[in-house]
């Protein structure tokens, strides 16, 4: 949804043929750095996200936590996950991690998407959904290792964080970054953010007593455009199910690299078959029109009661 004048496209979902303008202009990879160790869980980023993207409000429910809702939603792309982390040695931490799309270098959603142009990756690293091209198949949902894309059963489209591609395309930082009061969120080039993050992790290890502090930028998906500084890089799961080694489900890799070419061959054989059919059977003969059948839309899912 960004300004295509300044955002160069690098990958397009299910797109046959070349990408116009690919590689003609070098762009720095952008990156959002989330220093979890200085996040106070104030939710300013949640509000900024809802407000900037003009999302409708929804009814939330008490769930024995400060966390706004159990998971992100089609109209709630940015959620702080609160976790009480207690250890046998008596140490206790209240972990608050801002959860949103990670904008993977190798995006599982894009790989899984069968709709041409529904998901694009810009050369600055932002992975963006183009709802006008979305067919609502939800393959992207299962392709994502972070459980990010969320389906709206009314519009039959899938939504997620755009890393504010509209703002970034105009030279601004994402709304969440703008709103962060403690400065635990930073935005810049991937190189700069990595440098900042590694320095902070080193400070945590050397000065603050967090021996396992480190930077989360998983190479299993080629790195991400959203990176975390964690007190304990060895246990990312305790920060609200952040996977230690996120992977795109094997099925999609197989689908993309094996079945898709096979399918293409199948389609070509089909075309050959059609031509042969015409050659041997002749042109189409008119048939009577069948009656139009109206299908009721499925009922909306029942809302959870308080």
């Amino acid at each position, binding site marked *: 949804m960004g300004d295509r004048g300044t955002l160069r496209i690098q990958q397009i979902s299910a797109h046959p043929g070349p990408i116009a303008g690919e590689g003609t202009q070098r762009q720095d990879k952008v990156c959002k750095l989330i220093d979890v160790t200085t996040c*106070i869980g104030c939710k300013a980023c949640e509000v900024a996200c809802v407000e900037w993207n003009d999302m409708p409000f929804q009814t939330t429910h*008490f769930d*024995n936590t400060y966390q706004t809702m159990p998971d992100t939603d089609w109209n709630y792309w940015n959620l702080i996950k609160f976790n009480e982390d207690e250890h046998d040695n008596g140490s*206790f931490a*209240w972990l608050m991690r801002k959860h949103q799309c990670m904008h993977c270098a190798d995006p599982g959603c894009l790989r899984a998407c069968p709709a041409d142009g529904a998901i694009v990756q810009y050369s600055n690293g932002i992975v963006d959904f183009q709802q006008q091209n979305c067919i609502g198949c939800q393959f992207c949902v299962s392709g994502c290792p972070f459980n990010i894309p969320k389906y709206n059963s009314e519009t039959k489209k899938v939504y997620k964080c755009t890393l504010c591609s509209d703002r970034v395309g105009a030279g601004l930082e994402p709304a969440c970054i703008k709103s962060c009061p*403690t400065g635990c969120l930073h935005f810049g080039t991937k190189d700069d953010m990595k440098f900042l993050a590694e320095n*902070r992790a080193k400070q945590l290890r050397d000065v603050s007593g967090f021996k396992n502090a480190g930077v989360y930028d998983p190479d299993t998906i080629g790195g991400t455009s959203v990176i975390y500084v964690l007190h304990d890089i060895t246990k990312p799961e305790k920060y609200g199910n952040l996977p230690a080694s996120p992977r795109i489900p094997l099925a999609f890799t197989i689908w993309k690299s094996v079945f898709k070419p096979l399918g293409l061959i199948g389609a070509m054989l089909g075309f050959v078959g059609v031509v042969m059919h015409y050659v041997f059977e002749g042109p189409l003969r008119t048939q009577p029109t069948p009656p139009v059948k109206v299908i009721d839309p499925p009922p909306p899912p029942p809302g959870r009661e308080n």
Partner: protein
Amino acid sequence: MTNGWIDIKNTDMMLIMGGNPAENHPCGFKWAVEAKRNRNAKTIVVDPRFTRTASQADLFLQIRAGTDIAFLGGLINYALANDRVAKEYLVNYTNAAFLIKEGFKLPEDGLFSGFDDGTKTYDKATWNYQQGGNETGKVLAASSSPTQGAPQGHEPQGSVPAAEHGSTEGHKGEGQGYQAQGPAGAKAMGGGPIPPPSLPPNIAYDLSLQHPQCVYQLLKQQYSRYTPDMVERITGIPKDQLLKAYDLYTSIRKDGDTKKVGTIIYAVGWTQHSFGTQIIRTAAMIQLLMGNVGRAGGGVNALRGHSNIQGATDMAGIFDILPGYLKMPNPADKDLKTFLERITPKPAKPNDWESFNYWSNTPKFMVSFLKAMYGNNATKENDFGFAWLPRLDRNYSWVNIWNDMYNGKVKGFYAFGMNGVMIGPDTQKNIDALKKADFLVVCEIYPDETSSFWMAPGISADEMKKINTTVYRLPGAGFAEKDGTFVNSARWLQWKNIAVPPPGECRLDQDILAQIFLKIRELYQKEGGKFPDPILKASWTYTLPAHPSLAEVAKEINGKALADFTDEKTGTQFKAGQQLPGFAMLKDDGTTMCGNWLYCGSWTEAGAMLQRRGTDDPSGLGIYPNWAWSWPANRRVLYNRASCDLTGKPYDPSRKQVWWNETAQKWVGNDVPDFKPDSKPDEHMGPFIMNPEGVGRIFVPLGAMADGPFPEYYEPIESPIANLLHPDQSNNPVVKKYKTPLDKYGTAKEGYNLVCTTYRLTEQYHYWTKNNPMNVQLVPVPFVEIPAELAQEMGIKGGDKVKVTSARSDYIAKAMVTKRIKPMMVDGKKTYQIGMPIHWGFLGISEDAGRTAKTPANLLTPTVIDPNAYTPEFKGFLVKLEKV
């Protein structure tokens, strides 16, 4: 704050207690994070719960609500025992060396000297310094057993009458600081004919700090009882953790280091106790002991809970002060002269020391204020209209107003910008009080619980018919719908512009108030009245009288010259009508006017200083001298002379605030020096220029505090145990309970076995945002935070509906079962604490949708107040819990 928000970034050590800034001041908390990130500053958080702030701490201690003085007293004990104090600072910049009268007694039994059991007040005559000058070393030379009475060389203090040093001075010595929360002597006002004792003019002192009557030795003795074992039993904090925290905080003064700085940060978790002011005193004493006041990254820093609460205080939104913390007259103040004599302090210091005694300018501030109030009607001949000021005949603090309304004495109430029913303790009492009033005027942006008190849950249709209070709802304008200033915790006056015009028929507060005033004045003009002058003589010179512009009001508060004159000191010439550049120009002859002397300099001939947006910070200390305007005199850190040693050099050259410039023979700096600009260091002038002594008060003499010159630990009014220091004097002896049928106080024996506290959330703002869908989405319904262990014992699961009951009433909400509150051992007994946010009432999005039980949290809280600041005890009361 003595310092400011940004200045927190300069600190090396933070003690955050009685506040949860990450929760309630997330934007300001940025600077705490900066200190951590850029200076490797350490953070100690002490709180009844593991809070959002605690999540950022290097060390978190869970404390029993209300036991802060025990914890801090233990810290003083530790600092003294391990000599982790700033010696030079302590001796020269505080009253540690001053000698106290022989009759003064420490509260080993819970009572200081002078307690009258009948009136529950103190005769403070012995809470005073000795007269006598330099006594250094004399005690050691004279006697080898210094505990035996008054050593030689002393004035025989015990026999000196309290009022010896001139009762005509009439100085009560109360509330000298800017931040004074109100004269403790208010109760003593009301025309007491006995002239109060005053400070001696030549205070005796012992620089060796060895004299048994010197403040330092008394302090040592006072807190020697606060041993780690004792503090553990009271607070519930295990001893090893206590010692860790004490060691960490005092580590900034390890091995005589004077460079490092520590800050203490607090909020209403300290003020809202029946001994709240004394908790803050303890913090001030620690900071004085460690030499942290006046320094970048140091200070005692109150985080104000609303965007303009500092401004409200400065402008006398409190019953017992006038703008700029000038004192209110009482009925005994016959004329301006007697009043000024009473409230203007005389210097009281050792003869060979100097004291600026800045409050000696009180007459200039007061007369200029009267000129602002009454304009041309205020003349020398009529005492500048002094007779028209209201007199303080009794205590009109918040809780007392409502108590008086409940007792039928207060007949009408104007509520602007606050939700009276909800914010005070004991909501039911407040609702019942309003039922007895004749009228209620509420100016709000939503229909709130106050203007809807008559339809509170539980009031039947029949009962509703019997309520005869006439309620007027006035549609006000929200903060973004009007211009004006906010004064933040850092004392900055910052102008804001209108973002959107008020919708529909909503009106600006100043328009509503102006029109009410003009109407009342019209009635007085027509009909006369008992005492029309205060209204008829008031100055109202705005261009549009019914719509005063706030820029005009701000200029009036700054003050201007009323006649041509030349300032003697600077030679500057002023023409009548010119805006004044600062309070040093104010005069007591009626030729200047000023609405609040502290704000003088905020809107000068050079323009609106409070609208400035300069982002230059040459020193890198975050002073930003051209951003907005900070009172007093655009000074960002108060008492900053104390950041330098005796010779006038900064204790830490890397954080240079001010210093003595030998060539120029004056104090200069990156900040505005808070000092007499030309006082040479060898004059030994004290840096605490608002005290008549010129030094910081470790011991508070005379009447400044109602309940003791040193803080003593008392249990909250409702507490699970008797005071372990003195079981026979468990509570603050000067605190009184209220006596209406609704004022009930519970005990552990009656089954109120849990300590309960109340607080706010980041996601909500008081009782406003429950009307805003965005905030309601973030946290939809009220809850009670319950320790996991307690929940397990009681079979409560997260999300279960629970009922919390105090001696007053019930509160029903969902259980939030959490590991962030642990059971604690208080005097060897397992004790649980629970807590709840205060944001829900009986009107709002969730309330209207039937998603809450419509029980405001303050239904539970007791009506009992701190004797100095009159703040209710919202923190640390007793409840019981059950599953519904």
